[in-house]
């Protein structure tokens, strides 16, 4: 799998309240509606203009704060290609695996990538291709890959129980 998209670049410790505002957690239940307010309090330009396949590049501890899964759902539904960050907050990391949103930890790539450039993520070769060169990233651990290949945690659990 290979994706190419325009980069939206942000800093460290971006929290889930600015990715998906708390005031919407009851009023918005449809995933398509969630997508429309993604990053509203962080970057209204993203909310207006992000296109399917685009890539978010963040600093350390992306997705800290509240455990709300909508902070991943809204980006997945928006068609985001991947998030590349220096690191992810642990609950957000799990939620990404569960939603099937590709996430990559690569501090070197984050430092090299500029906002607005087109970046390609080549999952088969484990490479991020940027203007300033290629950066290797390690594959997901086998255990995590097993979850992803089954389509996420719930399909994985259902499969192990022999449920359709």
């Amino acid at each position, binding site marked *: 799998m290979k994706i190419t998209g325009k980069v939206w670049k942000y800093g460290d410790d971006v929290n889930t*309240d600015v990715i998906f505002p708390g005031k919407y*957690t*009851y009023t918005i239940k449809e995933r398509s509606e969630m997508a429309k307010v993604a990053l509203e309090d962080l970057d209204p330009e993203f909310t207006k203009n992000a296109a399917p396949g685009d890539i978010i590049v963040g600093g350390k501890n992306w997705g*800290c704060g509240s455990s709300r899964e909508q902070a991943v759902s809204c980006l997945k539904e928006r068609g985001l290609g991947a998030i590349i960050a220096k690191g992810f907050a642990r*609950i957000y990391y799990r939620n990404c695996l569960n939603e099937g949103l590709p996430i990559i930890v690569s501090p070197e790539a984050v430092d090299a990538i500029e906002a607005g450039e087109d970046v390609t993520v080549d999952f088969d070769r484990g490479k991020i291709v940027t203007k300033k060169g290629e950066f290797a990233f390690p594959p997901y651990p086998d255990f995590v890959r097993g979850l992803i290949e089954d389509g996420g945690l719930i399909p994985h659990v259902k499969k192990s129980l022999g449920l359709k």
Partner: protein
Amino acid sequence: MGKTMIEKIIERASGKQVKVGDRVWCHMDLSTARDFGGANCTEQFDKVTDKKGLVWDPDKIAFTFDLQAPAHSEGVAKNQKTIRDFAKRQGISKVFDINWGIGQHVLLENGLVKPGDVILGTDSHMNLLGAVGAFATGVGNTDIVASWFKGTNWFRVPESMKITATGTFGKGVCMRDYLTYLVGRLGADGMSFRSVEFDGPVIENANLAERITLCSMVTEMDGKIGLILPNGEVLDWLRSRAGEEVIERTKMITPDADATYVSHMTVDVSSLEPLASCPDAPDNVKPVREVAGTPINQVHIGSCSNGRFEDIAAAFDILKAGGFTVSPSVRTIITPSTREVMTRCAEAGMIQKFLEAGVVFTNPTCSLCTAEHYGVLPSGDVGVSTTNRNFIGKVGKGSNTYLMSPMSAMAAAVRGVITDPRDLLR
């Protein structure tokens, strides 16, 4: 080689010998959801099972209504009803409705948490249950739903760090200041994915409220869990609530002397002073005296971090030192964490005094942890709060919040500006 607390807990839950880095399936002792997020879980479970699915064990699921209780809008009311209906249909009796208080605290008081338990919840501060040696963690709705099929979920065995506290708190300084110190020193990702064991004489002598405070903000350092081995009065209390088994469980999770830690730091709390997390991040820490004099509009005392009886009593002592009046220019709101805490406050005669002083004393809830609650701040207002997050706009777009201890917060309420509580205790 010896085992850490988290390794022992995961070995019990997985039935396997584990080492750091292993990913293993664990049995849940409890899988919970609150009103905020709970309806997403029940609707998702119904969706992926065509509304025919049965949860694995109705006795091991609990719902707590704590964030928006009582419901303040039709949307919230509808979601709460969705949860109640699901619980009834599934035979789930542990529904702690709007009259109970903050979920983790209610679970503790009802004897549903034992040392060594593995517990899931939709609240990112579930891990405060590490205060009694349980491994509890906040997760998204998918993780909760997945666990309802057969009571399992997976975890990576984390590296452990140890933080030892020695010395004695000075006047006007408390566990919250020690916690704030740690958040400032380690930073927002300073415990990244790790289990943390808190120990030392300060911890061994700490009451349950203080232990809860300390463990409640591990998430604000991206930690997986902060664990304290129950002892003394806390262990006695736990036994009275959760039964004799807690004694055996405490032995079971006691870390081995030769367990491996990636780091070990020691802090002498005697040298600490009142601290504040300044806008707009918990790790933006400064001494209260450095921001003293800052005008404020609202003070809030409560939350899963500092909403226990002892926290409210500490605020009461500052109010007393300040002549039993809060500044008329400040809206002061106190929210006990549970009904039990509120009852104790009433019995101690504190509630009447607070009301006479001009405080709004509310029913037990999570209160001003989000902008989805009464008391939200208008744009331009500055708040002081004992909650655990002050991210930009968290309790109202365009507002800013300083986080600090109940003593410091009440000192601000009395004077109408941020105030070092030691100024009132002289």
